Every structure is written in structure tokens, then in C-alpha cells.
């Protein structure tokens, strides 16, 4: 891990406690997750107890403490998608890649997440893989879509 990078991020936002959310978000975009050493460094540099930072990192859903897969699958489970059958889509994806929502495959290929509304309700049920949207999903479409990612 590059300690200079983390220092740079802290410098950008300052050492006030109110900067912590932005700092953790930037670290996560840098590393795709929050590495332990990074959090320890933030704790030391900002004089915030590690237990506080760990509490924040586990409270907010956007943060991940483990490395995530190369492809991030987000299944929208907002109400509009739910009433249009999103749970079946999620189950089918879980079956196809063999992990549950919130987990990452052993080969670090996929991370599967459920999200509460991506705000594209007209297209529901909606699945987002990296930056690609797949609207009007059916469980029958899942296999073909997943195959496009390696």
C-alpha cells in the first residue's frame, strides 16, 4: 500500500473529523476497498481512534473492508424493482455465480451487492454491472449477460 497516496487524500480534505467520510470514500475509490493499513494510517494522522473509524467503515454501506471483485454487480431492490420481480433476478444471479449478496467470488471476478433504488425505476427490474445498466431484467437473461464479463 502506498502511504503517500493516503497522505495526499488526507491533505486534500484536512484533518478535521468532518472530513472523514470524504477521505474514506476517496481511499475506497483508490483501492476498491478500505485496506486495514490505510485506516490505521488515517487514525494516526487524524488522531481519531481506530475503533471510531472502524465503526464508520462498518456502518455505512458504501464501504467495504475486503477487496472487491473485478466486476461489481448491483441488483436494484428498490420498491419499484421489487414489485416487478427483482428478488427472482437476485436469486438467479446468486445461483449462477455461487455467492450470496454482499459476497465476492473466490477468484475475485464478481462482487454481488443489493442496492436500494438506483433511481431508474422505469427500467426495473434493473441490474448494474460496473457502469453498464441492464433494464427490464428477467431471470432467463442472467446467464447471457454474465457471460460477457471475464
Amino acid at each position, binding site marked *: 500500500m502506498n502511504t503517500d497516496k493516503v497522505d495526499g487524500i488526507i491533505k486534500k480534505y484536512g484533518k478535521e473529523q468532518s472530513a472523514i467520510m470524504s477521505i474514506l470514500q476517496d481511499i475506497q475509490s483508490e483501492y476498491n476497498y478500505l485496506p486495514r493499513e490505510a485506516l490505521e494510517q488515517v487514525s494516526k494522522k487524524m488522531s481519531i481512534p481506530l475503533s471510531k473509524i472502524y465503526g464508520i467503515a462498518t456502518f455505512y454501506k458504501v464501504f467495504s473492508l475486503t477487496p472487491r471483485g473485478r466486476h461489481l454487480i448491483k441488483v436494484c431492490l428498490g420498491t419499484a424493482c421489487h414489485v416487478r420481480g427483482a428478488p427472482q433476478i437476485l436469486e438467479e444471479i446468486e445461483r449462477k455465480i455461487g455467492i450470496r449478496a454482499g459476497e465476492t467470488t473466490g477468484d475475485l471476478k464478481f462482487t454481488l451487492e443489493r442496492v436500494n*433504488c438506483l433511481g431508474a*425505476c*422505469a427500467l426495473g427490474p434493473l441490474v448494474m454491472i460496473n457502469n453498464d445498466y441492464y433494464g427490464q431484467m428477467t431471470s*432467463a437473461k442472467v446467464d447471457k449477460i454474465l457471460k460477457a464479463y471475464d
Partner: protein
Amino acid sequence: MIKKLKNRTDLENLKESILKKKDKKKHCIIVSSGTCGQTSGSEKVIEKFKDEIKKQDMGKQVELKVTGCHGFCEVEPVALIQPEGIFYQKLKAEDVPEIISETIVKGKVIEKLLYSDTETGKKIPYEKDIPFYKKQSRIIFGNNVLIDPTSIDDYIGIGGYEALGKVLFKMKPEEVIEEVKKSGLRGRGGGGFPTGKKWGFCRQAEGDVRYVICNADEGDPGAYMDRSLLEGNPHSVLEGMIIGAYAIGSSEGYVYIRAEYPLALKNLEKAISQAEGYGLLGKNILGSDFNFRVKITRGGGAFVCGESTALMASIEGRVGEPRAKYVHTIESGLRDKPTNLNNVETWANVPMIISRGAGWYAKIGTQKSKGTKIFSLVGKIKNTGLVEVPMGMTLREIIYDIGGGIPGGKKFKAVQTGGPSGGCIPEELIDLPVDFERLAEAGSMMGSGGMIIMDEDNCMVDVAKYFVDFLREESCGKCVPCREGLENMYNILAGITEGRGKEEDIGLLKELSEVLSEGALCALGTTAANPVMSTLRYFPEEYESHIRDKKCPAGVCKELVLYSIIEEKCNGCGLCRKKCPAKAISGEPKKVHVINQAECIKCRQCFEVCRFGAVKIE
């Protein structure tokens, strides 16, 4: 080099010069490209327009304007051709050359790109004639169509920041508060507290420093009007905040924005820096002695942060855990200073009230709920989208006249409003006028304006379970009623939907609802039982079928349904057999297939792939 505006005259002059630059003879192609537009492929369409305008050398005759969401998400990507008002829908990049060569050059309407009426099937060329738009009053949201959200000049061109100029030089802070009070504006974030009154309390609260906050942590699943406002017209929200800050006496503001809204964040950041550039934010705004700056905090994906004390804890860099509000945030909020929090839509209403007057505003709506409200009409509805209507319009008008009714010839069952804190309103209340009071009387609430339409295929017990599941994950877990109460509520509902329901479950659900509404620490908890209570109130028979007959009438709850193949309809194509992930379907080619019930995992795939309607769920 952008010059700071030193007074109101500078602003007026700038507006004039912006309008002068506009070539009124030019055609304008307006393409909406909010998140839903982009999801549907608007960016490719826009690229193609740019290329094609160059290729056909039409730069002098036509202007391309990329805007935020126009609201009609169902038919995105759309292009509006001005000045004619021609409305093209569901565009693909390959449609673009024809639009230039036919519509722009020859003035011809391209039939195949037009919207067809969902009732009559008739093609409708002009936006103003489309039923979806006809019944709306888009006083707030309508501006999204007129401006490029990344251009402050566009906003100034339509009169933006004039209201700010008016309050800074013509009105005392108390007069601004009085005006907002008179307008009758109430908070659009859920509670519906009178905005002017809140501002007044905050102004009077003791303290040297005061904060204003814009809550853009739109967390209700199925509601996305705040995102669309921030994406499509960020300056209107900023202007509202600056006016509010002036009225309250604050020099520092925050926008707490949901992490899942990257485009809104980008446009807001840009808007702030543009406003700073013109001196509309920062020190001595428009040459007055009023100073105000705005900072952005990105949320972390926590629904509970929509609660004011949790949101403020999050801005301070702490876990978003609510605290008891026995001392209100108006007196002791962010960093223990008096703090005024309003949501995006509320702030966006403010400039309009100032520039057009409280009297004008108060004429819109019902006796106690003034103005318009933006709703997101989603779920089982033909015209999915964002609609802005005067308060007091009936559910029927919204769902049928604007929304076009239920697709697929299905029967309307309920509309869920108010998000996880709201409730389900049944068909017998379809003529309910929508305002704060009526929705609350019906056991639901306004919330931020999500309207999720459900049809006969939706199970109301499943819907209640869905919201409780959502909330038990989103609860901060601090207080016992919310943490333990929701978990037990979920266990009971899961039992009912899985065929383990008992008669006494209903009583337990009611008791848990009471401990939540009376005993939970914050509004997430005290309203958490609403989806359960409202479905129990209006759909008791659905609970009874699950508990007594072990049946799910809507065919949703997996453990209570059986999949089978109707012999007469099956022609043995074998598609279901091939698709079945559990290999539970057997049958010879061209012969009737059978589902092995012991193997069936009820994944619904056979039902979806069968083109002959031969799969039955009961």
C-alpha cells in the same frame, strides 16, 4: 475570465446579454440526459446529434441542448424539437440523421418516433398534447427542460438568481420569512413542517453561528425527484439555500448528498463553483454585506441519515446514529449550533415563491397543503416517470390520467406512498385527494413523494415483509424497539409468507407496531410499522389466506405456490426444460412436459420463457 457580479444591475445586464446572444430563429433540439436518460442510452444519441449536425453542416440552423430529466422516464431517450414542440421518444442513434434531414431541414414530422396514446394508439406529435404532460403543473420541474444544468448562464437566462437579488436588496430577513410563511410551503422531505415557521424558529434560536443544510440523501426506494432536480437544475436548489441562509442569518451551508447519485454530485459541484465565480456564493454576495458558502458532504449509503440528527452526525464525521430530539436541531443541531434543514425539493420551491409572490403560490393546492408536489410514479404503471401536480389532485387522476393506468390489462390493487415510513392505499380510496392530511388519515404519508403502483400480481404480505426487511437492515440498531422489534417483525412475516403463520401472529404484529411507534428513538423507528399496519388494515384477507389456508393469492410467496404445466397449452417445445436451473422439468420433444415438484425451486424461469402461457402458478 468570469467577472464577479457587483450588484443587481450587473445581474440584469448579464441576463440581457445572455438573451441577446440567443438566436431565436435557430431550431433547438433538447435531449434529456439525466440518469434515467443515460441508462436508456441518451449519451449515444447526443454524440450522434453532434456528429450529424457537423456532417450535415447545420451548426448555424440548429442548437443542441443537453438537459436533465424531463420526467417521462418510460420513453427515454427523448428529444424535444423547439420551437415546434415536437416530441420524439425511445430514440436510438440511428434515428438521428433522419431527424436532422427531415424534421430540421424539411420541417417534417417523423411518424415512427412519435409517442402513441396508451388508450387509443393514436400518434401524438406535440409534447403539449401528450396526456402524461397535459394534467401536470410543472412550475418547479418544468425548468429542467429549459436549461443545460451545467450552464449557470442558462439559469440566469430564465430569471435565475433574480429572487436572490430581490431579497438581498429589497427585503429584510424577517420579511423573507414572513413571505415563505404566507406561501404555506411545507417541507417536502416527509414530515410536512411549515418551512417559514421553521426558518423563524431558527433565526430566533440563540447562538452566534447558524447552519443551513440541504438534505439530498434521498433514501426512499422508488423516489428520485430530488436527484432529478439536482441533476437538472442545481442552481434552483442553491438559490433557495442562499435565500434561506439570508433569512435565517447563516453564513455556512451543507448539502448532504447520496453517494449513489454521481451525476447529481457532479452537476452540483459545478454549479457551486460557477455561482462562486459570479459572486453569488462567497463573500459579499452581489455586492451586499451578506456572506454564504456551501460545502458538500457525500453520504455513505445509510437510509437512517435522512433523519436530521443522524444526518448531522454524519456531516460531523461520525456514525449516522440519531439522538433524542428533546432539544430540537433548530436550537442545537450541527456542531450543537442552531441548524435549519430542508430537503432538495423544498429549497427548489423558494426562489419561485420569492419571485412570483406568496399570494400566487398559496393559490395552488389545498387549504393546508400549498403548491405542487413532484411524485415518482413507478411500479406497475404504464407511464413511469416523475410528475408534478398541484396538491390535492386525486390518486385516480395521477394514476390513470397521467400514469395511463396499469399495463398488461391487470387490475390495480394498491399504491404505496411515503417510502418505508408510509403505507399502502387500496383501490377503494382511489379518489383520495393527495395532500399531507389526507395521506396521513389513510394511514400513509407524503414522504418524499414515491408512488409505487401495485397490481393483482403483488402480494401485500410480501410488500410488508419487503419494507420490514429494508428497515431492519437500515436501522442504526441503537434502540431496542427498532433493532429487536423489526427483527422479530421480520421473523413473523417471513413465517407467514413461508406457510408457518399462526393465528396469534397478527396480534403480535400489532403489539410490535405499537412498541415501535411509541417507543422507538427516531422517526425511522416510529414510522417503521406503517407498511405493516396499513396492509393489515386494508388487506386483512391476504394475511388470513397465508395464515389459515397456507395460500398466497397473488402467487408471489414461493413456499405457498406450486408451478405446473397446463397439458392443453403445452406443445412440448422444451424451452422450459432447457432453461430450468434445477432440472426439474422433464418431457419428450413435442410431448407435454411435467414439473417435478420435489425438484422445483420456484425460480419463475419456466413461467417467463413459455411463449404459450402453459405454466401455471397457484
